[in-house]
C-alpha cells in the first residue's frame, strides 16, 4: 500500500482532483455572488467583480462554477455510494449464503447488466425529467451489478478459507464472519470500486447535462458547457466554456490516475473485470 503513495500517477491524480475539490469546499463557505440570481448584465465580460463574466441569463459564471463543482462531486459520491453499497450488500449476501438467494440475485444482476443503462437513463431522463438525485439513484441501481459480481466472487472465495472454517468451528455466526473476516478483506476492493463508480458518475452527469437531459436549474459542468456552446460563435469560449471543461477534465483525469495507480495493488483477476 505504501508503494502506491509514492507513485507519480497517484500523486498527480491526487493533486488534480484535490485542486478541483478544494474549489468545491471553498464554495461551501464563500460565493462571490448568488449563483442563481440572474440580475447581472448578461454576457458581460470578465471583470474584477465577475471573475469569469456573466452568462446569458445574467448569472455570475464563477459562482456558477463553484456550485457546479459541489453538485458534481456530490452527485458522484451519491451515485458511487448507492452503486457500491448495493453491490457490496448483494455481493456478500449472494456469495456467502448461496442457494436461492444467490440464484435470484444473480439473475437480477444479469438482466441489469444486459440493459444498456445509458439508454435507460436517456429514456427516463428525456421523458420523466427527474431531479439529479433521482437520476443518480437510478444510475446507481443500474450500475451495481458488475461490482456485485466481483464482490460475490471474492466472498465465495473467502468463505472457503481455512481461517473462516476455524471461526465457524469456534462458534462464529454468519454475521460475525461477514463482519470480521470477509468485509475487511473486501474493503480495498470496495474502495477501488467506489473510485471507479465515482468517475463513471461524474462522466455520466456531464454527458447527460450536456445533452440537455437534466434540469437546467441544477448547475453542473455539463450544463454550463451546454449553455455556453449555444453562444460559441461569440468570443466567450475562454471564460465561459473553457473553465468547466478544464475543471471537468482535471477532476476526471485526476480520479483516473488514482484508479490506475491503485490497480497495481489489487488482484489481477478482479481488476480485469472492473476495468470494463
Amino acid at each position, binding site marked *: 500500500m505504501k508503494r502506491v503513495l509514492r507513485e507519480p500517477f497517484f500523486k498527480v491524480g491526487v493533486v488534480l482532483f484535490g485542486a478541483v475539490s478544494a474549489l468545491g469546499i471553498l464554495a461551501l463557505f464563500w460565493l462571490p455572488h448568488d449563483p442563481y440570481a440572474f440580475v447581472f448584465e448578461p454576457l458581460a465580460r470578465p471583470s474584477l467583480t465577475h471573475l469569469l463574466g456573466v452568462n446569458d441569463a445574467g448569472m455570475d459564471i464563477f459562482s456558477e462554477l463553484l456550485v457546479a463543482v459541489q453538485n458534481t462531486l456530490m452527485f458522484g459520491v451519491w451515485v458511487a455510494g448507492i452503486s457500491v453499497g448495493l453491490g457490496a450488500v448483494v455481493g456478500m449476501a449472494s456469495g456467502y449464503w448461496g442457494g436461492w438467494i444467490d440464484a435470484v440475485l444473480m439473475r437480477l444482476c444479469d438482466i441489469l447488466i444486459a440493459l444498456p443503462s445509458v439508454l435507460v437513463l436517456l429514456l427516463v431522463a428525456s421523458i420523466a425529467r427527474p431531479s439529479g438525485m433521482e437520476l443518480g439513484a437510478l444510475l446507481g441501481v443500474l450500475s451495481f451489478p458488475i461490482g456485485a459480481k466481483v464482490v460475490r466472487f471474492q466472498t465465495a472465495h473467502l468463505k472457503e478459507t*481455512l*481461517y473462516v472454517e*476455524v471461526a465457524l*468451528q*469456534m462458534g*462464529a455466526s454468519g454475521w*460475525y464472519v461477514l463482519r470480521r*473476516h470477509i468485509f*475487511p478483506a473486501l474493503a480495498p476492493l470496495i474502495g477501488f470500486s467506489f473510485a471507479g463508480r465515482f468517475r463513471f458518475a461524474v462522466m455520466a452527469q456531464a454527458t447527460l447535462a450536456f445533452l440537455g437531459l437534466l434540469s437546467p436549474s441544477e448547475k453542473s459542468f455539463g450544463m454550463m458547457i451546454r449553455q455556453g456552446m449555444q453562444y460559441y460563435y461569440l468570443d466567450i469560449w475562454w471564460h465561459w466554456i473553457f473553465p468547466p471543461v478544464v475543471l471537468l477534465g482535471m477532476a476526471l483525469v485526476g480520479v483516473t490516475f488514482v484508479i490506475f495507480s491503485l490497480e497495481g495493488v489489487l488482484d489481477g483477476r478482479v481488476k480485469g473485470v472492473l476495468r470494463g
Partner: protein
Amino acid sequence: MVEFVDFSLFYEEEHHRLIALENLTCRLEKGKITAIIGESGAGKTSLAKALMAHLPSNATAQGSLKVDGVSWLDQESAQQRLFRQRHIAYMPQGGSENLNPLLSVGAQLREVMAPRFTCKGLLESVGLKEEVQERTPRELSGGEVSRVLLALALASDAPCVVLDEPTAGLDETSKRSLELLFNSLRAQGKTLVLITHDLELAHRVSDVTWVLYLGQLLEVLPSVELFERALHPYTIALSRVFPRMDRAKDIVKIKGEATFRLVHRHDASHAHTSTPEHVHVEAKGCVYAPRCTQPVRRCFEEKPLLKGTQNGAHACYFEGMRPLIALESVSFAYPRSDALVLQNFSLSLKRGEIVALVGDSGSGKSTVAKLMAGMLAPKEGRVVMEEPLRVGMVHQHPMQALNPRFSAYESIAEPLVLGRFPKERLDARVREVALACGLGEDGHVLDLLPHKLSLGTLQRVCMARALANYPDVIIADEPTSALDPSVQARVMKTLLDLQVETGVGVLLITHNLALARKIADIIALLKNGRLVYEGDMPTGVGGL
C-alpha cells in the same frame, strides 16, 4: 487375613495433626501377593508399621485393624512382640543401616531364625553363599545387603511378610531373581505384602494392587489390569509416569504436587504460625481432585467412597477417564459421492489421553477429525459427545488457518471473543496462553501479522488459539507435517506439556507412526477407511 475397617492413623504434632491414613476399609487375602503402590507421603510406610503394630508414640489410630482376627494395635507390647515373632515379618526399606554393624550376618540370622531353618538354607534361598554368614554388614555389597534383609524377614517363618521397597536400587538381574523368589514364597503359601513404587514389579509379581494416595486408598485392582484397565485417574496417571521398556512413549509427570495433609487442632493457637509450604490444610472433597485432570464440582465438595466393581474397587465418581468424544460404528461418505470414506469406524477419545490416528493420505484421517469436531455428520453410526464440549483445532498449514489481516493477538483472542469471555480478563488470558505456548518471551510477537512470523511460531499461535478458551479437546490434524524437524520437536513438546498441565484430550492425526509412538497413549491405525489397530503398541508391533 488382614482386615482394615474404617482404619485411620494420625500423627500428633505440636500445632496440628498429620493424616497418614484415612478411613481405610479393605482386606488382604491370605496366600496372595498384594502390592501397595503410591508416591511418597501416600502412607505406605505408615501402613506397614500399622501392620507390624509398631507405631511411634505420637501416633493415634482409629477404627479397626485385625490380623488373623486379632486387633494387635490394642494389645500389650509383650503381645505385640510375640505377634511380630510369629505372625508377621518385615523387610525394611534401605540398606545396611538396618543391620547391626558389629554382628555377623549369621549371628543376626540366628537371633530370629525359626527352629526349622538353617543359616545356610536361608542364605541359599535368597541366593547367597553359605560363607556370607561369617561376614559383617560392612563387607557386603548393596545387593547382598538386600538379600540378607530378606533372609532375616524370612527367618521367622511367619506366614505373612511385609516387604518395604525390596527391589529399590537393585539391578535388573537381581530384581528378576527376587521376583522368582517371591513367586516361590507364594507357592509355599505365604502371604506377601509388597510395598513399592515400581509399577512394573507390581504388575509382574503381585496378584492384587492397592493404590494409595495421601493416606487414601484410591483403588484396588488385579495387578494384571494395572496398565490396561485401571479405573481411577490417579492409577492411570501413575501408569503413564512409569518408564516402561516396551513402550516408546516418553514419561509424563502428573501436574501439581502431592502435599501432606494436616488438620489444625481446635485448641492449637495457630494464628501466627505460618504453615510450611509442603503441607496444606485439610479440605473436603477427593484428595486427588487438585491434581486430577477431569474433576467436576462434586469432586471438590464430596469425597468419593471406595466402591466395589467386579474384582476391585475404586474411589471415584467415574469409571476410568471420561470419554469426551466417541465415534460409534461410523460410516461416512461425502454428499455427492457414494464412495465410503470411513467404514464401521469406532474410536473414543478420553480425557487426559493422547490418541494418535495414523494412516496414509486418503485413508480418512481428516474426515475423522471433522466428525469429532462436529463439522460433519455421519452417514451411519453416531457421534457421542460429552456436552457441552469445547474443541480446539490445530491444522497443518498455519498460514491458511490464520487470517492474514489479524495480528497474532487478535487470532488468539478470537475464540475468547466468540465465547463471550469476560472482557476484563481477556487480555490477561491471551498473554497467559501465549506464554504457555512459548510465544511470550519476545514481547512484541503478539502484535505481528502472520506474514512476518516463521512457520513454527505461527503453528504455536494456532495452538494458543486452540487452547485459549479452555477447551476439553484438542484435535491436531498433521500439525507438524509442514515444519522443519527441529521446529516439529519444539511444537510437539509444547503440545505435550500443555496436555499434561491442562488435561485436555488430544486427537493427533499424523502419517508419521514414529512420532505417534513417541507422543500418544493410544495409537489407532486407519487404512482405507477402516480401523485396523487400536492400542498402545508395545515395541515389536508395528508396520502394516
